[in-house]
């Protein structure tokens, strides 16, 4: 049985109630990318400031459920000040965290199981995989960030 406490960890509720890095950045020099979840109407806008290969600042606006909002807040805290290589690495790890349940169900010999200890507070979101319909809420911000990085390198 999926337990509600697995989903709504204290860290998640904290980031939902007091989201980090809320706001906007002037564009340019920052870049701005929007993400939508048309099924539930969740919206996110990610502002990125990239200087010399480092994500020096990130701001977020938008609205959505506790999972999408806390995930975006946790993401902003995890990637701010990191090199773009580190940011990409974190995105990959997070995506793996969101699919680990699926792969274990299929019992595919996937060696890339994420060590959640390397994820810090982000690990609080691992309970989301037990609620498959909510995974898209958790990944909205990350997909949007990913798209923004493509624009930086493109």
């Amino acid at each position, binding site marked *: 049985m999926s337990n*509600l406490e697995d989903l709504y960890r204290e860290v998640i509720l904290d980031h939902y109630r007091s989201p980090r890095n809320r706001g906007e950045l002037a564009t340019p020099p920052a870049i701005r990318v929007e993400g939508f979840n048309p099924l*539930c*109407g*969740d919206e996110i806008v990610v502002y990125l400031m990239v200087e010399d290969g480092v994500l020096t600042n990130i701001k977020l606006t938008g609205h959505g459920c*506790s999972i999408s909002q806390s995930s975006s807040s946790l993401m902003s805290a995890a990637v701010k000040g990191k090199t773009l290589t580190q940011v990409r690495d974190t995105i990959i790890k997070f995506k793996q965290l969101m699919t680990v349940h699926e792969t274990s169900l299929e019992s595919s010999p996937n060696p890339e199981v994420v060590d959640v200890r390397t994820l810090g507070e982000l690990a609080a979101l691992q309970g989301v995989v037990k609620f498959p319909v909510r995974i898209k809420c958790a990944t909205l911000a990350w997909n949007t960030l990913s798209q923004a990085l493509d624009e930086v390198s493109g």
Partner: protein
Amino acid sequence: MINDRPITYLDSAASSVPPRAVIEAMSRHYERRHANVHRGVYQTANESTHDYESAREAIARFINAPAGANEIVFTKNTTESINLLAKSWGAANLKAGDVVLVSEMEHHANIVPWFQLREALGIEVRFIPVGDDFRLDLTTIDELLEGVKLVSVTSMSNVLGTVNPIKDLAQIAHRHGALIAVDAAQSVGHSPTDVTELDVDFFAFSAHKMLGPTGLGIFWTRQEILADMPPFLGGGGMITDVSSTGYVPAKGPTRFEAGTPPIAEAAGLGAAVLYLEGLGMDNVHEHEHHLTEDALSRLETEFDGRIRVIGPRDTIARGGVISLDVEGVHAHDVAQVLDQFGVCVRPGHHCAKPLMKRFNLIATARASYGPYSLIQDTDVLLEALTDAVKLFG
């Protein structure tokens, strides 16, 4: 059971739960009488045709169609019924500059087909506004009706629960020379329906929202209008004659029923009509009205204003659809907590985005009643809501 709790089903506005009589009628059809309809001469083919055509008669009786079963067309769902109206009657009778008047509280099913017709023909789509009281604002209805050829409105909002004054609207529309269509998906299974008394021109609804199966919708219009409507889908069953040079469409409702129709579903619908007639639609309405009044009054007093009902407080001309906006809690989170209590509600925009925008909402959590709902369902709902408010408080 959901999460070790018995299911508290409060999502009848999305789909109602069929009673055993409906499931048995469909099983009986497949087990003993299944064959394709029409033109078979063997016994089960006749019985299958009988199942299908009796459902048409049952529906005609249930909504009091003036010319009976000849006015009932079976479709896939309410959405297809409205598309049939737009793409057959609309395309043949509307031209650039003509106006179709809908309302701000419509489901996307009664908006998008008209936008499509706007793209195809250059018609105008106009909206009746919704007031702060969650009811249609009819103060400027005479101006809104300028140039209108068709009014197409819902009999009951799937978000607000508001029941619209269809008979009055029909009178006003006719006075302005317009016809009136009704998206009746939310009302037919919950209160008495009489298209003759309402004096409307088109009626669209679904079997699965009136205790019947999915996959079957109903389109009704007056015989004289139906006779002039061009065919919608082409194929077998909808013709009088086909040669290598052309075809002659069938007369009557089968003209719009190309291909093998949902036969077992029709048998299920026939049983659903009998079941609802047995309950008595006045009794169903009274029962759900009582549940709604009780729920609204408890929601008002038990949550210190932290839960807002997006819909009329007055239960006159209001159905058992209760949209909730919980302060500081997204509808998806509300629904997730409710799921832990086995409570089935629906979060989201309910395919009514213009209405959500009107009230500056992203999503609501919607609880809705059916004939089988009990006051105990409301008890569990409120217990679960208390938990949701506490968790995110």
